[in-house]
């Protein structure tokens, strides 16, 4: 069975006033892919994600989501999103972890409806998936940065999205937990067939679960299978990024447990 195209960007360019941020980006993501989006700071990674999420409109080019033009795409609940260590959220906000995770169901429940019949179960399950069920009734502001980030992932998972987009999700999570965090992503991808787009610097840790790699620095320099990316020379990568970068190594610990 041919895998469905979940994301299809064609010649997408974007500029903020006079600064060109993205130039002629063409990128496809298929069902079941685990795409790592790599690029230095200021390479336009977050902007690209915002275009995919419909938060920004490209100045040129077309975006298709699940085969439909982004502008008429109605099923945003199919796409889960975890932003960079939520700068958008207000830390003093008086809400419990449970309330925050439940808010991830808003689009799925739909306007003018209150809740889903199995809502309680969905919320508890997604908290379990990130190991935060014992914090369900705590206020979100009382948690550490890493715990908060887990709650935001639970919020994205609760609506059972087909595609999960994570923007540097391990920033703020302590080192020991990063590994188990990536195990969780691998599990979601392999067992639950959830498609993943991961923007990251932790290329070493995550490597084995990644199927595809895209290198971005204003434009896409490379997009293909991870194995092909691995065979690229360091010089080549350095030329694209303008400085030395680490490469993904095969001998990581993800699956050695």
């Amino acid at each position, binding site marked *: 069975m041919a895998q469905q195209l979940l994301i299809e960007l064609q010649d997408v360019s974007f500029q903020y006033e006079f600064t060109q941020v993205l130039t002629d980006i063409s990128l496809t993501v298929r069902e079941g892919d685990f795409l790592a989006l790599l690029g230095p700071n200021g390479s336009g990674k977050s902007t690209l994600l915002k275009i995919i999420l*419909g*938060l920004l409109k490209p100045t040129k080019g077309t975006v298709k989501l699940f085969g439909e033009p982004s502008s008429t795409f109605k099923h*945003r*609940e199919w796409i889960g999103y975890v932003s960079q260590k939520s700068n958008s959220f*207000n830390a003093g906000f*008086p*809400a419990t972890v449970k309330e925050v995770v439940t*808010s991830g169901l808003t689009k799925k429940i739909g*306007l003018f409806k*209150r809740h889903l019949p199995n809502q309680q179960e969905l919320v508890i399950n997604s908290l379990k998936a990130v190991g935060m069920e014992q914090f369900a009734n705590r206020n979100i502001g009382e948690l550490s940065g890493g715990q908060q980030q887990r709650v935001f992932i639970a919020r994205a998972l609760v609506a059972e999205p087909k595609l999960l987009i994570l923007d540097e999700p391990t920033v703020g999570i302590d080192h020991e937990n990063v590994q188990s965090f990536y195990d969780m992503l691998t599990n979601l991808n392999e067992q639950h067939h959830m498609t993943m787009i991961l923007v990251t610097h932790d290329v070493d840790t995550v490597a084995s679960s990644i199927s595809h790699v895209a290198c971005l620095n204003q434009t896409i320099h490379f997009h293909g299978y991870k194995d092909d990316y691995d065979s690229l020379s360091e010089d080549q990568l350095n030329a694209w990024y303008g400085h030395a970068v680490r490469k993904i190594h095969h001998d990581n610990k993800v699956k050695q447990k």
Partner: protein
Amino acid sequence: MIESILHYDFLQNAFLSGIIIGIIAPLLGVFIVVRRLSLIADALSHVTLAGIAGSLYISQSFAALATLNPIYLGIISAVGGSVFIERLRRLYKHFEELAIPIIMSAGLGMSAIFISLAQGFSTDLFSYLFGSVSAVSRQDLWIVLGIALLVLVFISMFYKELFVLSFDEEYAKASGLPAKTIHLFFMIVTALVIAASMRIVGILLVSSLITLPVAASIRIAKGFKQTIFFAILFGELAVVVGLVTAFYLNLAPGGTIVVTSILILLFVIIGKKMVMTIRAKN
């Protein structure tokens, strides 16, 4: 006191309006405070004043409109102001708070013109500025009730959307919620609550009933629903104690309600600190 309330229509009007406002102002206030829009509520109340002053001037100048209830023009200018604030906030994306002084000075400036044109309408205006126990008419009560129903329907219909929008606006937009539309409705509803509350607490003190009970509630509540519950509880307490005191001591209820709110707030802050200290010792 209860006897007087049963006996006098004006007291019934004031108390019933007060009790209704004690629910809707803190309820909406929770959303206003967590979205950091408290100052915008304050600015809107000054725009409402322009509408009230304008209406009082019109009533004075045109005999045919002498009985016009100023609350109508107050509502219209508050709603107009709320839409205008949104425009300004989008126009000055990087200076969002700039909308507040613009709207506030526009409101006060127009009020000053109308007040001086009319060469003062002291008693009436005073009751609009600081609230009144005796000036609430039956018609005012019906308007307050109508606005309250609208607010309750709006909040219960859009509760989950308002929650997401308040907690994390970017996430709300990314999940495809009609953020702009809901926000515009929210601002209009805020304007309506301000117009409804001014009869009791007065224009200059409206924002206190929206923010002070919430400020106290946030200190002790667990979760969002509890924050709403305590905010309404504190709001009600402030309104009832404030109105009774105002009635017996012949004071402006705006003042007594605000002072009661402040006392509740201090009590909560100090009480919480004491509980924390005792817990730490054990």
